[in-house]
C-alpha cells in the first residue's frame, strides 16, 4: 500500500516511516502541508497520515484541500489525523473535515498500526468486495465466507453481525449498534439474541485464532488477528 506521512517532527516522522515500512507499505514523508496537497493532487495514496500542528499550512487546511480540491482517483483518500491537541477540540473529535480517524499523541505503535490496517481495509472494502481478517475472508458480493481457504457456513444473521465487527476491528461495537445494523432483517432482536450469534461465531472462528472479546455491559470487540 502507498502511504503519505505529513509530519514536521523529524524523529516522529522517521519512526512512523520505519514502523509502516516494516508493515510492508511504501511510505512517503513530507513535513510541509503545501507539499502534501501537491503530492495528493498528482498521485493516489491509499492512506494519508496527517499531523494537525504543521508550520504554515496546518493540518486542518490540508485536510480541507484534500477533500475539496484533490483529484479523487478511485474513491476518497482515507486520512488518519494525528494531533497534539486534545480530543476536546471539536473539529478533531467530530472529524467534521472528513478525517476518517484521529489519534492523540503520543500513541502506542501497535494501536497506530491497527488503525492503519483498519482504514486500509475499509478503503479496500469500498473498492473491492473482499474483506480479509487473518485467515478469514468474506466475499461480500457472492456472500460467501472462507476460513483458511475452506468455505465457512454462516447463517444470515451471523454474517451480518460478523460484517459489523469486521468494519470496526479493535473497536468496541455496542450491542445496540449491532442490533441497529442487523435490524434490516425484520423482526425484533433482543440483546440476548445477539449474544447467541456472537457465541456461534466464536465457536466457528476461535479455533482459527480469531477472537471476539466481550466488553461487559457494552458490546463486543473483534481483536486484531495475532496468529493462531
Amino acid at each position, binding site marked *: 500500500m502507498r502511504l503519505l506521512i505529513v509530519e514536521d*517532527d*523529524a*524523529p*516522529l516522522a522517521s*519512526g*512512523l516511516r*520505519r*514502523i509502516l515500512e*516494516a508493515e510492508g507499505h511504501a511510505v512517503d514523508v513530507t513535513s510541509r502541508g503545501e507539499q502534501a496537497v501537491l503530492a495528493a493532487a498528482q498521485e493516489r495514496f491509499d492512506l494519508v497520515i496527517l*499531523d494537525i*500542528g504543521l508550520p504554515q499550512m496546518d493540518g486542518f487546511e490540508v485536510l480541507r484541500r484534500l477533500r475539496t480540491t484533490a483529484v479523487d482517483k478511485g474513491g476518497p483518500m482515507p486520512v488518519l489525523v*494525528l494531533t*497534539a*491537541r*486534545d*480530543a*476536546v477540540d471539536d473539529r478533531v473529535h467530530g472529524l467534521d473535515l472528513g478525517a476518517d480517524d484521529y489519534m*492523540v*499523541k*503520543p*500513541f*502506542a*505503535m*501497535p*494501536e497506530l498500526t491497527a488503525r492503519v490496517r483498519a482504514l486500509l481495509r475499509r478503503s479496500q472494502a469500498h473498492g473491492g468486495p473482499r474483506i480479509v481478517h487473518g485467515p478469514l475472508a468474506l466475499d461480500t458480493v457472492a456472500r460467501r465466507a472462507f476460513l483458511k481457504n475452506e468455505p465457512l457456513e454462516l447463517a444470515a444473521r451471523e454474517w451480518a453481525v460478523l460484517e459489523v465487527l469486521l468494519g470496526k476491528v*479493535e*473497536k*468496541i461495537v*455496542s450491542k445496540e449498534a449491532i442490533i441497529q445494523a442487523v435490524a434490516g432483517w425484520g423482526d425484533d432482536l433482543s440483546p440476548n439474541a445477539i449474544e447467541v450469534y456472537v457465541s456461534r461465531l466464536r465457536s466457528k472462528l476461535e479455533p482459527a485464532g480469531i477472537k471476539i*472479546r466481550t*466488553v*461487559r*455491559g*457494552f458490546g463486543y*470487540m473483534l481483536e486484531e488477528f495475532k496468529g493462531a
Partner: protein
Amino acid sequence: MAARSLRAHLLRMLLPPIAALLVLGGLVAYYPTIEPATAAYDQGLIDVGISLGTYIRPADAGYRLELPAAVDQVLRRDSYDTVYYRVLGPKGEGIAGDEGLPEPSGAVVDAVVAYDASYKGQKVRAVALPAQCGAAACRVLVAETTVKRKRLARDILFSTLLPEMLIAFATVLIVWFGVKRGLGPLARLSEEIKARSPGDLRPIDPAGTPEETRPLVSALNGLLEEVSQSSRSQQRFLANAAHQLRTPLAGLRAHTELALAQPLPTEVRAELEQVHQATIRTARLANQLLALARAEPGARGNAAELNLKTLAESDADAWVHQALARDIDLGFELDWAPVQGDAFLLREALANLVHNAIEYSHRGGRVTVRTGERGAHAFAEVEDDGPGIPEAERERVLERFYRIPGTAGTGSGLGLAIVREIAAGHGATISITDATGAKGCRVAITFPHG
C-alpha cells in the same frame, strides 16, 4: 491598625462644631432678645420712679413723700417680684421708702441710671432717677427682685436652645443612619463579591452601584482583569507546554517501540522497557498537567449539556485496551446521566478514575464503570476489586502528589486530585467507599441536582 469606624470618625468630626454652633446660636439668639426685654422691665421701674417723684412735697426742713397707701400698694404691685423704693432729698438724705436700698455707684445724680445691686440678701435690679424737689433735685431709687427677669431669660434660652438641641440630635441620627445607608452600596458590593465562586473573575457590573463607589468598582475590575489575564496566560503556558511535549514524546515512544520490536540482548531489552514505561508515564503526566491547567478556576467556560453515558462510551475503546494490557475485565453499566459541564474535563476525570482502578487492580481483576442517576443526581463511578483504599487514607489520596505508602504502580499521585478539582469545578462531590464485593473500592462523582 484597628479598623476605624467611619461613623465614629464622622461623629468626632461633626460633634464639636455642632456644639460650638449650639452655644453660638444660643448666644446669638439670647442677647438680642434679652436686651430689649430687660430694657422694657427697666422702663417699668423708671415709670414707677416717675410716679413716685410726683408725690414729693416740700416740708418743714426739706421734703417729704405724701404717698397715699392705696397708691403705694398699686406701685408695689407685681405678680412675681417684690418692689422696693427709696426717695432721697437734695442732699442725699433718705426721705421715704425702704431704708438701705443701695444707690448706684458713680456721682452723676441728675441722670437715669439702671444698675444691679443687692438688697436684703437678694439680687435686685434698680433704677435711679432724678425728681423735681422745688428748685432742687431729689433722687428716686426703685428696685425689684429678679424673679421675672430670670424667668424671662430662662424662657428665651429654652425657646432658642430646644430647637437647636433637636437639630443637633437629628444631625447625630442622620450621621448614624446616613453612614449605614450611605455605605449600603458598599455592603451590597462586598456581599456580591463574597457570594462569588473562587473562579469567577468576571468584572463587576457597575450598573446599580452609586457614583461614589464607581472608582472602587473600576479599581476592583482592573484587579480582576489582571488576575484573570495572568491566570489565563498561566493556563495557556501550561497547556502549550503539555501540547508541545506530546509530539517529541510520540517520537520517543515510536522509536523505543521500534527498538523493542527487534531482537535485543536481555539487559538492553530490560533497560529499553524502562525507557518505554517512563515515556508512557511522562505522556500521562503531561495530560494530567493539562487537565489541571484546564480545571483551574477561571479557565472554565465550556459548560454544555452532556451525558456521562455518552462520554464513557466515547472513551470505552481506549480504556478497554488499557484493561486488556493488564488482563483486567473492564465492564460497563451505563445509564442516562445528564449533566452540565466541560466535556474535556469530565472525560479526563473519568479517564483518571478508570486508569486508577486498572493500575491498582491485580491482573485478572474486575473493574466496572457506571453512570446513571440516583434520585435527581447524576453520577459516574468506577468500582474495582483491587486492594481498596483504607478508611484513614481516603481523604489524603485526594491530595496532589499523595500516594499511599508502599503502593505499587507508577502513578504520579495526581489522578484523584485532578478528579477532585474537576468535580469541585462542576459543583460535584467525590466519594470513596468500599466496593459492593468483598474487597476493592468504589470512587463516585455525584453531580448537583438538575
